[in-house]
């Protein structure tokens, strides 16, 4: 399949702050003409500092926000032209893993209810079937059976993240947008989660759009890296190219910050 799964073209998003009855309309331009593409089964890492527009792009791709202009192609369909009712089948195909997993999970829900919620929303069967599927999914991501009736504050950071991943995978999506999935986790837990993500990607031919600010971590997982700065993609290349021959000065800064002396973490085809 040569055609990329996801194509983003010239995406622009401007936030306007309207103050009631005021003359000024202040606009914040979060994204300016962003274009990128992701092939099936591949990972594109979007790296940039806070405020560069990464989260906005993630939200737009997952259609939780509407871009001001531009197109988002998933396969043959342009998502920007669809309105909410038409979007429902596409929601299954793109899933977003939010940044703060503790905030993204309702604290009153039991663990299996969290994972089965997407099934419930999409009306995929009876409660019994949903629960069974949820338990199966939880097992696949490595959550022991003892945790099924727990609530999110009773889980560790790593377990919570796995729960969020299970929820994101349960509808069997084609593209997973991961917004800073490693934040707040210990290094060893980061490694575990990264391995889980890689294994799942191989199994299901998933594509990932990985949002990160850590260039080192991103380059170990990604097939391609796009560097975003002030709402614009300034460089787009493979990890080894980025790390060894960064073309933009900003990219060079990121590389210098990420890599200590002598650490070359270009992806060679294996995991961490």
């Amino acid at each position, binding site marked *: 399949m040569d055609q990329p799964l996801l194509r983003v073209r010239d995406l622009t998003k401007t936030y306007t702050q309207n103050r009631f009855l005021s003359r000024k309309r202040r606009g914040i331009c979060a994204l300016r003409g962003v274009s990128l593409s992701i092939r099936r089964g591949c990972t594109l890492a979007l790296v940039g500092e806070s405020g560069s527009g990464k989260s906005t792009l993630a939200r737009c791709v*997952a259609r*939780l926000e509407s871009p001001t202009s531009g197109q988002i192609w998933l396969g043959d369909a342009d998502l920007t032209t669809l309105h909410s009712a038409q*979007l*429902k089948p596409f*929601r*299954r195909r793109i*899933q*977003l893993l*939010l*940044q*703060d997993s503790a*905030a*993204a*999970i*309702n604290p*009153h829900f039991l663990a299996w209810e969290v994972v089965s*919620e*997407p099934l419930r*929303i*999409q009306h995929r069967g009876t409660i019994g079937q949903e629960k069974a599927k949820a338990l199966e999914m939880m097992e696949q991501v490595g959550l022991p059976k003892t945790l099924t009736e727990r609530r999110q504050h009773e889980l560790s950071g790593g377990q919570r993240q796995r729960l969020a991943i299970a*929820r994101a995978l349960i*509808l069997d999506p084609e593209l997973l947008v991961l917004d800073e999935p490693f934040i707040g986790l210990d290094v060893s837990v980061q490694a575990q989660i990264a391995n889980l993500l890689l294994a799942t990607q191989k199994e299901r031919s998933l594509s990932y759009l990985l949002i990160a600010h850590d260039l080192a971590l991103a380059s170990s997982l990604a097939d391609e890296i796009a560097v975003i700065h002030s709402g614009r993609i300034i460089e787009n290349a493979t990890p080894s190219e980025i790390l060894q021959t960064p073309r933009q000065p900003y990219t060079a800064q990121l590389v210098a910050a990420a890599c200590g002396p002598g650490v070359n973490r270009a992806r060679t085809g294996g995991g961490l």
Partner: protein
Amino acid sequence: MTHWQKIAVPLVALVTVHLLVVFAGFVAPYDVATQFREHPYAPPSRAHFRDEKGHIHIRPFVYAWKNNGNFAEYEEDTERIMPVRFFVPGDPYTMLHVLHSSVHLFGVAEPAHIFILGSDGYGRDQFSRLLFGGQVSLFSGLLAAALSLSLGLLFGSAAGYYGGLLDAVLMRISEVFLALPWLYLLFAVRAFLPLRMSAAGTFLLLIAIVGAVGWTRPARLVRGIVLSAKERSYVLAARGFGATEWYLLRRHVLPQTRGVLLTQAAILIPQFILAEVTLSFLGLGVAEPIPSWGNMLSALQQYNVLSSYWWMIIPGLVLIPIFLSYYLLARSLEQQV
């Protein structure tokens, strides 16, 4: 005291009171309208176990009141011992609209009367009227609170969730309600509605007015919760799965209001009971011959009653332990939230 005990004790007390009141027909020895004209303002009957001759009786008994024609002085007629019997036949009654019976929990044979809490100006047993009056006062408070909370939930969540014009309009309207002192507001609404209505009509009217007037505070609280809940990340996540607005409200936002609604219930119910009592006391609520604790207390506005017949204040005194229970309940619920 453990936390659950703190909630259970007042709750059990309240449930008991409400059950007593619901089964008033059985528990009360007399009907509300039964008048014993020859015994107006009779003091509470005294239960004795030991008679004049010094014998101890196992079964308690009372003496009939006799007043020698002078209604101001009552003394016990010690000639006849009238034992208190249980499960006696008496005035027929209907409970819950379906149970017909005429068996009462306790009573004494004619010509004595058992006035546990004395009698009023028409010779009606105050204890019986207290129980039946409780049906009106307690349940009008409960129902009015239910109405208020429902309205508050509806308007508060609509305002908080949809925001915009709806929110602005509702907030302006609630401002008008809040600008008036609540009793003045209650009177004002009552003022323009018909004064003389059937008993059932007045009862429903009172519930409607008190409930409709009291929606603003719960609405504001619900609105606050909804406003913060709808911005949470998990709501956003659910939206990402394609959830409808209604699903989000139902599953994620509204359950957060449960705590506030319960606490508000414990706070509002006594206030609304008091509203009914106040309105009936002043003649704007439930009218004779249907007893309510309010109109029973209004007898105290007469000087002679106030100075000589202390038992007429009991309908007001019962309010105190009931309010205490609601107060303790509210405190425990607040701590939980």
